[in-house]
């Protein structure tokens, strides 16, 4: 049976290949500039649409899939990002492509405990307070448990935001949190507004990374920090092969079994391979005007945190 199928398959391939080449050139003439969607070549408009649909489909199972694919390690990566950020109470954070809120919730937890520590320190050093001062401090606690910190979660996808809002309600996050529908390449915010800008596992899905970086620069205050957490390139050859094997053989299967969606997770692993490696991304961030740009590899480069400052 296999032998009989081979010529048929080869014929299909040749025909398919020629057809694809023809389509490619026709498409190139008709629509906009070409870019990639995983390993396919598409126009920018097509790419945006396809990616929107991917996240529309995966939104409900996004968190479950993240846990399954990374065996929960993505939580550690996000924790490390927050530790690197080390936000103090009063920080204004913009979390772009923040979808289901993982970074935002961690931020709130972080500043809340930082604030508690702050207040405890204050109390320790001021043992002899007058009744006036004591009642004032109680009022402060009531209204500033986050100490004026705020996080704005911005995402281009309605479904992801929906899941994020539901999660926030379910987990009891309400103070200091807002949700905005917006495009990383064209942010609906004023210049010089935010102390920190984060984009966790989102910049890979942006079609014009340069525009997103420019926007990040624009909305950050002078002195503000840019932080990007993203899948990157593994240089160790043995680890790289194991990682590839896992990515291409296991992850789409997980996608099919858990989320009933093979193709979205096939896209995910392909998009990781297409994304610029550490040094290239560093250069792009520098091009947008950021200074002191650096990166930190996590798990030998499976993930990397890039950081830059607007000075």
């Amino acid at each position, binding site marked *: *049976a296999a032998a009989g199928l081979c010529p048929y398959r080869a014929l299909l391939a040749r025909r398919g290949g020629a057809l694809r080449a023809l389509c490619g050139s026709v498409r190139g003439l008709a629509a906009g500039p070409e870019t990639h969607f995983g*390993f396919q070549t598409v126009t920018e408009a097509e790419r945006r649409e396809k990616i929107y649909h991917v996240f529309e489909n995966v939104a409900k199972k996004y968190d479950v899939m993240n846990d399954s694919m990374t065996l929960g390690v993505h939580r550690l990566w996000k924790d490390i990002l927050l530790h690197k950020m080390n936000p103090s109470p009063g920080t204004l954070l913009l979390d772009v492509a923040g979808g289901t809120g993982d970074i935002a919730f961690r931020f709130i937890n972080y500043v809340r405990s930082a604030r508690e520590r702050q207040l405890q320190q204050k109390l320790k050093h001021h043992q002899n307070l007058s009744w006036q001062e004591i009642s004032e401090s109680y009022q402060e606690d009531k209204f500033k448990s986050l100490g004026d910190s705020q996080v704005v979660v911005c995402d281009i996808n309605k479904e992801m935001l929906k899941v994020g809002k539901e999660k926030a309600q379910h987990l009891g996050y309400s103070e200091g949190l807002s949700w905005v529908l917006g495009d990383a390449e064209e942010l609906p915010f004023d210049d010089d507004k935010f102390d920190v800008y984060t984009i966790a596992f989102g910049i890979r899905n942006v079609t014009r990374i340069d525009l997103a970086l420019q926007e990040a620069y624009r909305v950050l205050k002078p002195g503000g920090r840019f932080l990007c957490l993203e899948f990157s390139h593994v240089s160790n050859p043995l680890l790289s092969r194991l990682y590839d094997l896992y990515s291409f053989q296991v992850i789409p299967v997980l996608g099919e079994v858990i989320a009933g969606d093979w193709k979205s997770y096939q896209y995910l692993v392909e998009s990781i391979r297409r994304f610029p490696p550490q040094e290239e991304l560093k250069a792009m961030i520098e091009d947008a005007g950021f200074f002191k740009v650096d990166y930190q590899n996590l798990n030998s480069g499976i993930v990397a945190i890039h950081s830059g400052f607007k000075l």
Partner: protein
Amino acid sequence: GRACLSHTEPRTRDGRSGEEEEEEGWYQLYPGHIPTSPLQKALLAAGSAFMALYDPYRHDMVAVLGETTGCLALPNLRDKMKHHPEGYRILQERPRIRLSTLDMAKLQGLPDGSLGREYIRFLEDNKVSPDTRMPPKFVDDEELAYVIQRYREVHDLMHTLLGMPTTILGEVVVKWFEAVQTGLPMCVLGAAFGPIHLSARNLQLLATELAPWAIRSGRNASCILNVYYEQRWEQSVASLREEIGIFPPP
């Protein structure tokens, strides 16, 4: 490993050559086809088996299990069809049972006891539709993909001929019948593990009456895929049962 349909070159998707045409590594043999490596098929088979048991509402998992484990049974079925005049015609003409291809009004107008009328009654009573059948994705042969698709679409007709509803008990009975008829591992697994979800009373009913009858009928009957059902709507269910060799339900 399980090299059911031996590929000429399982090219690993290491993703370095993004520029070439054959970026996917394999070729899409039919719309909706997702080419998979033997390892992926094995993982899919295991994962879908687990998930189908864990969450019985995941019908897509049952479908995937059938596709990834059917590599021996499907060619068998296809050959049975090829060597039978009616089955051969079905393979040539590739009829599909879909709401858009069925003349619902005409079928409803047929006399009670006819295949068409009873089929419509079955769809209405159980509130199902032939259009909810999943198209195959992981079968690496275009003709076999049709065979499994035909098997899925004929499943509802099996319910009609066996007189079984779409309750868990009814589905398990049909699975026993199909397991004997087709030899598809998915049917065998479904028949063996489906009863997990049954109550004690139903379990007893299954074990003492229904399963033995289903097995006997399955063995006695000719291949159910060799019947051109679309050309037999007027035939009475009883006569069709007799023709195929299905014993009357208990």
